[in-house]
């Protein structure tokens, strides 16, 4: 505080001295004027920019090349415009396709200011443009999508659809002095109610698919089992057949053999075989016989001289 009280005195003293020095005063005044003149005459345009020079509010010169530029001081002023690609997006909104399906769509456009003069006279600045260009983008999008079906939008056709929107937008935005670099649809979804329906459909579709898969599994399993059963039956039948053939074969051979031996004396063979058969057939303790004592065996049973 003390210092501050002291300072003004000293300052005043210095200033008095300073202002009394005319040379210094003049130098200061002149340099100030020169400085102001330089500042209001020289300006730079960035590589990313372009400029329009206004004289009393009237555009008189367009500067598209970057670098150090000059203008008349005070009379002229400079408006700078971006030269890069600028972005404009529109909010998600409902659009009706030609098949009456409703869609939620948002899109963006990339544009560049090519004619700052037109741009300035029609919309002044980017904010002015955004409103108008947004409206045109909106209407051109509605127009184009109104002519196509949802299914067309869900194909490679989307590229063409976007190209058509760009075309319309480019034509209608010419007056603003902008070049439309690109228009792209971002989201193209169905409204929430439709989404619910789609979810329901997806769910039922999956349920159908799951059932079908399970049924097909059962079908195939049954087929495999049936085939196996069939195979088993065939194998067994085949085996039975073969075994019967083998048995028959054996029996035939046996018959041949018997025929070969018994054939030497069929009558004796008959007798011999019968005898053996009696022995085999009438086994001990299993047979009860009621016999009348005659026949050849009992020839001598009643008397020794039977004849």
């Amino acid at each position, binding site marked *: 505080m003390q210092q501050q009280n002291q300072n003004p005195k000293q300052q005043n003293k210095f200033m008095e001295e300073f202002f009394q020095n005319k040379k210094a005063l003049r130098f200061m005044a002149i340099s100030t004027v020169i400085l102001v003149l330089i500042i209001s005459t020289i300006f730079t345009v960035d590589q990313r920019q372009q400029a329009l020079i206004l004289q009393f509010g009237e555009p008189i010169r367009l500067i598209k090349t970057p670098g*150090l530029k000059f203008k008349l001081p005070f009379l002229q002023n400079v408006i700078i415009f971006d030269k890069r690609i600028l972005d404009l997006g529109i909010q998600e909104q409902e659009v009706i396709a030609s098949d009456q399906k409703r869609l939620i769509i948002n899109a963006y456009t990339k544009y560049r200011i090519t004619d700052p003069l037109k741009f300035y006279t029609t919309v002044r600045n980017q904010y002015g443009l955004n409103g108008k260009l947004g409206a045109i983008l909106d209407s051109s999008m509605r127009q184009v999508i109104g002519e196509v079906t949802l299914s067309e939008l869900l194909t490679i056709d989307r590229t063409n659809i976007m190209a058509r929107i760009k075309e319309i937008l480019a034509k209608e935005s010419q007056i603003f002095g902008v070049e439309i670099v690109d228009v792209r649809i971002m989201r193209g979804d169905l409204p929430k109610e439709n989404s619910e329906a789609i979810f329901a459909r997806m769910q039922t579709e999956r349920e159908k698919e799951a059932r079908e898969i399970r049924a097909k599994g059962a079908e195939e399993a049954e087929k495999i089992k049936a085939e196996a059963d069939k195979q088993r039956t065939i194998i067994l039948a085949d085996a039975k057949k073969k075994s019967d053939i083998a*048995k028959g074969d054996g029996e035939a051979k046996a018959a041949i053999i018997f025929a070969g031996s018994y054939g030497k004396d069929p009558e004796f063979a008959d007798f*011999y075989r019968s005898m053996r058969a009696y022995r085999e057939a009438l086994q001990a303790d299993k047979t009860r016989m009621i016999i009348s004592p005659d026949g050849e065996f009992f020839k001598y049973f009643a008397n020794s001289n039977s004849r």
Partner: protein
Amino acid sequence: MLKFFTLKMNQGPWGPWSGDNTQKPQNSNPQFKADSNQNSGKNNGGKNSSNDSGPDFFKKITDYFSNNKSPKKLAGLIVLSITALWLASGFYKINPDENGLVLYFGKFYSIATPGLNYYIPYPFGELVKKSVTTVNTEEFGYNSNGKKSDYKKGERNLEAESLMLTGDENIVDIEFQVQWQISNIEEYTFNITEPNLTIRKAAESAMREVIARTPISEALSDGKSNIEQTTRALLQQTLDSYKAGVRVVLVQLRRVDPPSQVIDAFRDVQTAKADKEKEINQAQAYANDIIPRARGSAAQLQGQAEAYKAEVVTNAEGEAERFLAVYRQYAKSKQVTKKRIYLETMEKIYRDSDKVLIDKNAAKSSVTSYFPLNDLNNAAAKPKPEATK
């Protein structure tokens, strides 16, 4: 910079100042620095400083002037040192992973060469330096940092961002990321605004366009790498059409799922597929079980048949031999042998069996009255005492 400045202040002509009050020059330090940056171009030394500085500084200058210690020399020194500092700020270094641009008066002058270099600093020149090796990642449908981050100050609606309509009017839930880097710093700097937003929008649009022509089954299963490739190509093409100077390194699908509302149904399809496999395997197991068994049974039958055949034939051979042997004897004396065989046979039969002899005459009457057949059956169990011979 500041260090350099302080160093200068503690020596040479600045000495007398600091003799007055050691704190004061330090206080005015930042002020000085700001001055040198702002007005370095058109610096007028002491005069300028006297306009901008506070009373403390003023006092010193006043002191100095009133002491009449060669003011010109001091002013010259101030101008000189500030100019030197300003010129020194024009040194720059481009690292191997960086690219740079030099602009003079806003106009592109040259690509900055790597290594230590020099440009005339602000307000004449401008240096733009960007890393060209850094890979930037844009995330869609998720946030790896967990924060509800945003682009362009609006909260991202992750659900809206990740749900996409497929070519067959189904909805998939997709998370993906895009990695990119600067490929051409000139284009990147001069052609596009808001690079991150531009890339985000183009990427989302490209992914949605590709998904919109892909059926859901493909998106969920083997079409993923195809989607990634196509999207990357489409995104690169879009960005190239903006001359954005950006290279899309990678488009990667992190997750492709059915929407959460229907995911159970989709999982059930997977389960059903497993069930189907299970059923088929079980049936196969059944088949694998019964067919070899049947073959076994067949082999067994076959064996039995072969055995039977051999048995029958061998028996036949044996019997035939036996018969022939007997026959040879019979042939020698037919009548005797035949009789003997008969008697031997009958003898054996009658000896071993249970028998009842009934006289011829008796048999003529009603024989059956003697034989209650049932009793006979019972009696057959016991040997008969009157058995003869």
